[in-house]
Every structure is written in structure tokens, then in C-alpha cells.
């Protein structure tokens, strides 16, 4: 039975009309995403071991280029096998962290804002951890509603974008830390590219990012 024109809100609520990315775009994201993530991991690790710049640059570049090798020689071949594609948020976050490690944070935030920004960042981290817990429960059929399937609906995108912009709306003078723009930017990229899987939650958060946010909150539990 066809309904000639479905009500707009039914179209937005429906999770049975997902827009999925094409395979070639997913392959590009697989390499690009893991290149950024592994480059940051390599950079962070080598900075702890050796402060010499050539080493840091070399390892970072090597990690970033390793994903582009053919077939099983590429790190992305094995990372994709185990963990599929990284979320847009994780890639953006790793990109920002990499930029910070490379010295791009010299013009950082005025101190007057930092307390408020860190509070907002912690709020976002709490939201991320809560969402990842709900999605993990949903995976094991322990969540009362089909949360993952809702990630295919249009309304989930709209609501998530609205919520992610709240820290900016509520900030003083409209200035907030770069970290707080990661979620809105991830959603905007998702709307355009549908990466990594066509499901909003996969774009916003992956299990490793959920773990990372939990560790962040644990380490900053006393920073009030």
C-alpha cells in the first residue's frame, strides 16, 4: 500500500529509510580516519618516550602513511578487520589533539574562559559516556527501545545537532573551546557524507571513543 505523500514528521521519525554511504567512500574514510587516529597515537606515544622532534615527526608520518600500504601490509586492513571504521568525532578529536601536540595550541584560550570551557567539555564527555553506555546496552538487547535503529532516522540527526550546539548557545560571548565544536561538526559532516556507516551514532561515537571519554572523566574526576 502506497501513501501518496507521507506526513513530514513520519518521514523524519522513520528509521526504515536510511541513507548509506557508498563502498568507495567508506574505503576512503577507513584509510583517512585510521591515518589520523594512528598518527595521533604514534605522536603521543613517541613524545612520551623521546622529546626529539625528528623522531616525533618521523613516527607520526610513518603511522599516517602506514594505512595507505596495499592489502594486509596496511594498518587499516587489520584495524578495519577488528574495529571497522572510526567515528567522525574520534577522527576530529584525534586531529585536534595531534594539532595540539604539534604546537598548534599556542594561541590557546584566555584563562578567564578555561574553567567554563572545561566544565562544558566535561558535560559533553558525560553525555558521550552516557550515550555509549546506552548503545552498548542496546547492542545486547538490554535497552528498552531500539536506540541503534533510531540512528537511521532524520529526527535523531536534528535532535543531536540541537543538543550539541547547546554549549555554544549557553557560552559567554559565544566563545567556546574547539573540543565543543567536534560533535556539531561531526553531525554536519555526517549529513553531507553519511560516513562511516549511515548510522548517526556510528558518526558521533565509536566504542573506543566511549572508552576514551570514560578515561578522561576518570582522570578529571577531582578537577572541579
Amino acid at each position: 500500500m502506497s501513501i501518496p505523500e507521507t506526513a513530514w514528521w513520519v518521514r523524519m521519525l522513520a528509521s526504515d529509510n536510511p541513507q548509506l554511504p557508498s563502498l568507495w567512500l567508506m574505503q576512503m574514510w577507513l584509510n583517512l580516519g585510521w591515518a589520523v587516529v594512528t598518527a595521533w597515537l604514534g605522536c603521543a606515544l613517541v613524545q612520551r618516550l623521546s622529546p626529539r622532534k625528528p623522531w616525533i615527526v618521523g613516527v607520526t608520518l610513518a603511522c599516517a602513511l602506514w594505512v595507505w600500504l596495499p592489502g594486509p601490509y596496511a594498518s587499516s586492513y587489520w584495524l578495519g578487520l577488528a574495529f571497522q571504521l572510526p567515528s567522525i568525532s574520534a577522527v576530529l578529536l584525534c586531529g585536534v589533539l595531534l594539532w595540539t601536540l604539534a604546537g598548534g595550541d599556542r594561541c590557546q584560550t584566555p584563562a578567564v574562559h578555561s574553567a567554563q570551557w572545561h566544565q562544558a567539555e566535561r558535560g559533553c564527555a558525560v553525555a558521550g559516556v552516557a550515550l555509549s553506555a546506552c548503545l552498548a546496552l542496546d547492542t545486547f538487547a538490554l535497552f528498552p527501545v531500539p536506540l541503534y535503529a533510531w540512528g537511521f532516522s532524520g529526527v535523531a540527526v536534528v535532535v543531536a545537532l540541537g543538543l550539541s550546539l547547546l554549549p555554544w548557545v549557553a557560552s559567554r560571548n559565544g566563545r567556546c573551546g574547539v573540543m565543543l565544536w567536534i560533535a556539531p561538526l561531526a553531525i554536519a559532516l555526517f549529513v553531507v557524507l553519511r560516513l562511516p556507516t549511515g548510522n548517526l551514532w556510528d558518526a558521533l561515537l565509536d566504542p573506543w571513543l566511549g572508552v576514551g571519554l570514560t578515561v578522561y572523566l576518570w582522570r578529571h574526576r577531582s578537577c572541579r
Partner: protein
Amino acid sequence: MVVRALCALLAVTAVGLVEWTQRPATVVAALASTPARSESLLSVGLKQVGQGTIPMPEGALAAHASTLLAMPVGSASVLTAFWFAGDRESAPNVQIAAAQLDRDTQRWSAARFVVNRQALGAQLGFGVRRLGNPVAWLDTQYRVHLFVVATGWGGWAASRIVHLQQASQSSALPDLQFEPVRLLPLSWWWNTSFLVRNAVMPLQDGGMVLPVHFELGIKYPVALRFNRNGEFAGMVRMSQRRDVLQPALVMRSPSEWIAFLREQRSHGKVGAVQTTDGGAHWSDLPDLVLDNPDAAVAALQLGAWEAERFAQVKEESAQRAGDTEQNVLPSRLLIPQRLVLAHNPSTESRIQLDLSTSTDGLVWQTLGALERGAQGDEFSYPALAWADGSVWVTYTQNRKRIAWQRWAGVPVVAKGLP
């Protein structure tokens, strides 16, 4: 702050508009169509009219998890069977094998491998550790789609489902080639642990519903919908239970469907779930009385649900002046809808495999034995299809080969009808 709030509202509205325009303007309800157009099968019984084993690919020591695809009437083949074969289940050299039943000679072709994990990994861009159960479907353009279990880091619990599509012009076995469409996005947890096992249920819009299940720790079934072009169109959990898997899906009417499930518990029975709104919502049914030794079942419905289509058929017949079809309409209306189930009728082992029948999916009668083995034998993972006026069954024999049987109807004339 007001300005920022207005800007945020503007951004949200813009994204909402983009989302709205990307969604289809109409919603098509999921209405099932019968895969077994068995109008000629006015039968009270089915009897076995043929059996044998399907040739194995050269060098394959083990075979398991066959699935059957009825080919179009104009095709040189009646059926295509797909299964996985290699040294053993979950061996590194396991590939997806296929063979076709020739329409003229009624003989199975030599088998060949059609999906290889190394080639699949190269096409996907990331590794595939092992290959498992395949399920095939023919879309409205007669392209073969193949859904294959492909594992990540781990065993079957780390499985994902790869959607492949026919890449060759021809679906004849020597030419048949597949290319991956994508991995189906089914779970946030690194997209594990979903598996496919049983055949699809076709929809009237040309799409289909693919029954799958989750099996990391707990087991639950999920119905995936695909549109007429084979594009993924959503997922719905089918049960609140956490010990049932491998749903075998059939229709009782276009919007009323029932699925039979393997139960993972000792002294299990065949589980059942149903929907009455075209798969939008599902509810658990009491277990059937049929025993189940934690083994896969296969189901198939026979006969069109003519009551639902009566008005449409009558109108079409009336438009054809002098069409004798009109005369047979009443008898077509009375064709019973029958369900057929292939299952292991035991709580202990897979030593026996039976074929049972039912009109409502709840009360079952044994039609006959597919296999009665000796101690140590195992007959498992049946698959059913309707083709060439018969029910075809394939199943695994002792994890070494794929056996087939053909069951044909015994025609009778219904009482009181011309």
C-alpha cells in the same frame, strides 16, 4: 545569547530540511508475497521424488550451511545452491561454493567457489578472518544478491554480514561473479555480532525481509528490510527472548508473518514469533511442541494467499474477455496455504531430519523423514525452496557434503469443486 540561539535554530532547521529532502516522499508498507507460487499444488501430501548429493568443489573436505535460490523461469537452471566449503568449519580456506541444477537435464553442475575471503578483503579494504553462512536473493532485475557471514577478530560471535551483488552479466554459474555492496550496519559495537542463516521473505513491492540474529553471549533475532533495488531499509528486533536464533520467516497473510527459531537450551523446542503489522512490531509466541536440539530449522509456505488477492485477481480476469481463468477462480481461492518446516525432531541430537506441515504454523504434522541416521550421524542446517513445481530441500550430511531432496505434491480435486 538570543542571536546564538537563533543561529543554532537556523542550523538545526537547515539540517532538518536536508534530512527531510533525503527521505522518500512515500512510505510503502511491508506486505509479504508468497515465494512459492504453487497454484497447481492442490495437494494433501508431498512425497519424495528424488534425492542425492550436490557435487563438492575440488579438494573441499567439509561443507555446511547450504541455501537455495529458485532461478527465474527463463533461466537454464532451476536452482542455485550456495554453501560454505573448505577443510573444516571456520578453516582459513573456507570459501562460498555454488552449484546449479540444470533445467533440462535435472542434474547438478560441478560446484565452484564464488566468494573468497582474501578477494573479499581486498575489495572491502579491510581483512576478513573467516567466511560462514550464505543466503541468496534475486531482486526485481534478476540480479543475485548474496549475504555472507564474515568474521572479524574472533569466532562466530565476531561475525558481520557482507552484502554482495552479482557483478557479472549472466547468473549462469561459469560466469557468476560478485562484488561487495557493503557490510550491513547492524550494531554499534564494532558492528558485531550479527549472522545470517535462513532464506529471505519476498515483499510485494519487490523488496524482501532478511532474517538475521545476534549471538554475542545472548541470542536474539532481527528482521532486516531491503527495498526492490536491494538497498538496506531498516531493522527491527523480533523477540524479547535472549536464547533464540536463526529465524526462519514465512507469511500467513501479507501482513501477518511468523518466524520459527532455533532455541539454545537443553531440551529445547522450536521457538516462534509473529507480527501482524508487516514486521513493524513482533511478539513472542509459546514454543511449538516440536523438539529442537539447538539446531537450525528451515520454513517455506506453499500456495498463494488468494483470499487477500481475490478482488484483484477477479478484476484482472474480468478484464480479459473470454478468459477461462475466471472459471477456475473459485478453486484458486480455496487453495490452502500450507507451511512446511524442515527440522531435527529430537532434543538430543541431529541424527534425524524431518519435514513437517501445518496450515497455521502452530499445529504441525510430520510429512516424512528426510533422514534417519545411525549413531554419530548428523543431518543439519536444512534449506527449503519452491521451484519447478516441487519443494526442494538441501541439508548438511555429517558436515562433509550437501544433500538434496525433491518433494512433489500429490494432486487432488477438492470436494465439491469443479
